[in-house]
């Protein structure tokens, strides 16, 4: 979808610049490469069900990565997403167990996520503290609240109701497509629209590219920053709801731990510039899938678990270096 749109936009100007396109969207190359390597590792890798599985496992990181793209494009960073997920999900479980209402739980998770994001945003946008510091602080603070809240133990969804409601969302399918994957694609389209077809999207790019010029053009930079963090929190809240649906329980100490690194990795693989100003929403979508393709391939090759993270690190660095090299080539 997004690819064809890019194509038609480019055609309007002078023909289609294939080289430029590949440089901008080099995550497509990475994805094809990963799928080919996966095919070598296992005959089943490219089968439809296994591809759907791959996408389903990347949903949580992927949805948060969509929000993180906004944050990084605006020239900031959000390290607190894992803790936001844990706290929203932990409270979400309690809400669900008492009300047995899925919609209410979703709304609650989204509200909590947005609230925590708003909190980050106020500090970054209005108080003008570096986002790295603000979210590093809330990373630990939100986690600590979560552990307090759950008394250190896991929050478990009531089994009898879980099987009839949330589990259907987490494991069910519409035809051949898992619900989670459909939701992921739907949210990606929505965020893509926000960033490419609304004023707000342009403001985010403008703030990340040249904050001073953005301000002198009449953009309310503080407001935009607050909104960016709030939206990221909101998306993380949605991811938290899906997390409950998929796993049926939340371990307050470990749920979402280290997510921020995977999320940032997904955004980086997707070709978003860490310096801000440039990036593609569809890139982060594919970036998350590539990240989990790497995981899947490594386990298909039966690589020992403790080596996996090392190889993952190398591959991520490689992807980012490739992007830099292509960028330089273009200039």
């Amino acid at each position, binding site marked *: 979808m997004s690819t064809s749109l890019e194509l038609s*936009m*480019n055609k*309007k*100007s*002078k023909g289609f610049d294939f080289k430029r396109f590949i440089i901008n969207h080099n995550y497509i190359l990475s994805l094809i490469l990963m799928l080919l390597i996966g095919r070598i590792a296992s005959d089943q890798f490219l089968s439809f069900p296994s591809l759907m599985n791959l996408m389903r496992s990347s949903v949580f990181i992927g949805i948060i990565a969509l929000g993180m793209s906004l944050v990084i494009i605006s020239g900031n960073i959000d390290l607190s997403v894992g803790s936001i997920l844990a706290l929203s999900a932990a409270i979400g479980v309690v809400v669900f167990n008492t009300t047995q209402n899925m919609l209410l739980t979703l709304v609650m998770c989204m509200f909590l996520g947005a609230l925590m994001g708003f909190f980050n945003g106020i500090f970054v946008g209005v108080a003008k503290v570096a986002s790295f510091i603000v979210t590093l602080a809330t990373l630990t603070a939100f986690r600590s609240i979560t552990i307090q809240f759950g008394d250190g133990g896991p929050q478990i969804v009531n089994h009898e109701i879980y099987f009839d409601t949330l589990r259907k969302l987490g494991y069910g399918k519409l035809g051949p497509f898992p619900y989670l994957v459909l939701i992921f694609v739907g949210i990606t389209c929505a965020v893509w629209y926000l960033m490419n*077809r*609304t*004023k*707000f999207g*342009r*403001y985010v*790019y*403008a703030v*990340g*590219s*040249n904050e*001073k*010029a*953005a*301000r*002198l*053009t*009449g*953009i*309310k930079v503080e407001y935009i920053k607050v909104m960016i963090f709030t939206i990221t929190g909101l998306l993380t809240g949605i991811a938290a709801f899906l997390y409950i649906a998929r796993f049926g329980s939340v371990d307050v100490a470990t749920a979402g731990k280290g997510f921020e690194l995977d999320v940032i990795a997904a955004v980086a693989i997707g070709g978003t*510039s860490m310096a801000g*100003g*440039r990036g593609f929403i569809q890139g982060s979508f594919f970036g998350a899938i590539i990240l989990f393709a790497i995981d899947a391939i490594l386990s298909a090759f039966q690589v020992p678990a403790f080596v996996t993270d090392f190889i993952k690190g190398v591959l991520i660095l490689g992807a980012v270096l490739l992007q830099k090299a292509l960028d330089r080539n273009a200039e």
Partner: protein
Amino acid sequence: MKNIHKSFGAVHAVRDVSFSVGEAEIHGLLGENGAGKSTLMNILGGILRQDSGQIYIDGEEHSHLTPVKASRLGIRFIHQELNLVNDLKVYENLFLNNEIVKSGIHLNRKEMIRRSREVFERMNLDIDPTVFVRELDTSRKQLVEIARALLFECRLIIMDEPTTALTNEEIDNLFTIMRGLRDEGISCIYISHKMPELFEICDKYTVMRDGAYIASGNFADINEQQATEMLVGRNIDDDVFDKTDCVQDEVVFEAENLSCEGYFSNVSFKLRKGEIIAFTGLFGDGRGELSECLFGARKATDGVIRLNGDELNTKSIASVIRSGVSMVPRNRKERSIIKDMNIRDNISMAYFTSRHKGIHISPKKEYRRYEENRKATNIKAAGPDHLITSLSGGNQQKVIFSRWFGLDSDVYILDNPTQGIDVGAKFEIYQLITRLVDQGKSVIVFSSEFPEIHKIADRCIVMYKGEINKEFTRKELDEVEVMYYATGSNKRS
């Protein structure tokens, strides 16, 4: 210095300049903005390397200077911008890279502090060397910068506009120190735009213009009028620019007793419909800050701005834009262009913040807007989807103009609108500006280039040290006169 040449790309910053300073002499270096003074001094300080020409110090040739070599030869450079590390203490800054050490590695703090105190005493200053530089105000920082030059043995001190941040008392103090140094046989090169200061402290002068040497001599032999004439030259641009007078009586925009502490005070003017007012002055006149205040980008500490008779709401920039005031900021690269965006989005950005209704953007309308603006301002670009950075400076500036022209504002504030663009593009920009007033808009131009003011301005207001010093009508405009008031020559008692 003999036959020095230096060019940056196609621009000849310094052309065949020879310059000499004797022992125990305070030498004033004069020139307008961009005359090449700073470049020449940077070559002497070893910061830039000349393309050709020789430098002699005490009769010996030292043509390949580096900053380290220059300071070993006793040349000390006090820069126009401050080069202090805010997060270090005063004495640490003074001795930065020249630390006094005991037994190889251990810093001798006591000795450094003692010597710092000595220097400040000599300068008649009460700065505590153990406070952080961050805690000093700008004029004190400037004085610390000067102290750094005095701390070590030196033969020649270069001061590039050292007094812009100083109070009158501090300036007097500085002059006393300079005279003291001269008595010790130390020479000084003093760069300044301020005539009264130059006449007070300097013995000799050298004038530069457009990168070339103009004249040298003793200050005692000339007066301010003559100095200003040399500065400006007689070659006033004679290419006539067609400008019809379309000033109407109605006052559109008005500032009353506008002040911003530390930058400017009591600025009042009335802008009429179809009028172009030019503000000019020299470095440190508060012009840039004034332009920001008029646009709501900086808070004025006192005074009112009125638009069409009503007080302008300067709460946010967006509200100022919506009321009908647009601004093309100075320093395009830093303040105007959004470098990661294409031309189309760069044009539309101000429209989005002030006129666009709803949140949805229709690509079709954006392409149409681009096409209209491209024709109106004659942008030469490969296509709307190319990055703005792919354009030449002149075309980038036309894109920025397009950003604001589409808004149909009543008042256009243009801060240095032709900065860094070539002659042809400048001419096109002037045409755009005159087209604005033809349509009944009003324009305020902030500029330091006289030929530009001469071409387009109906009135010219000259600022000096944050105050309006003189106002000229179009008929009275004369470059020498303007320079006379911009340098504050009339303020000399």
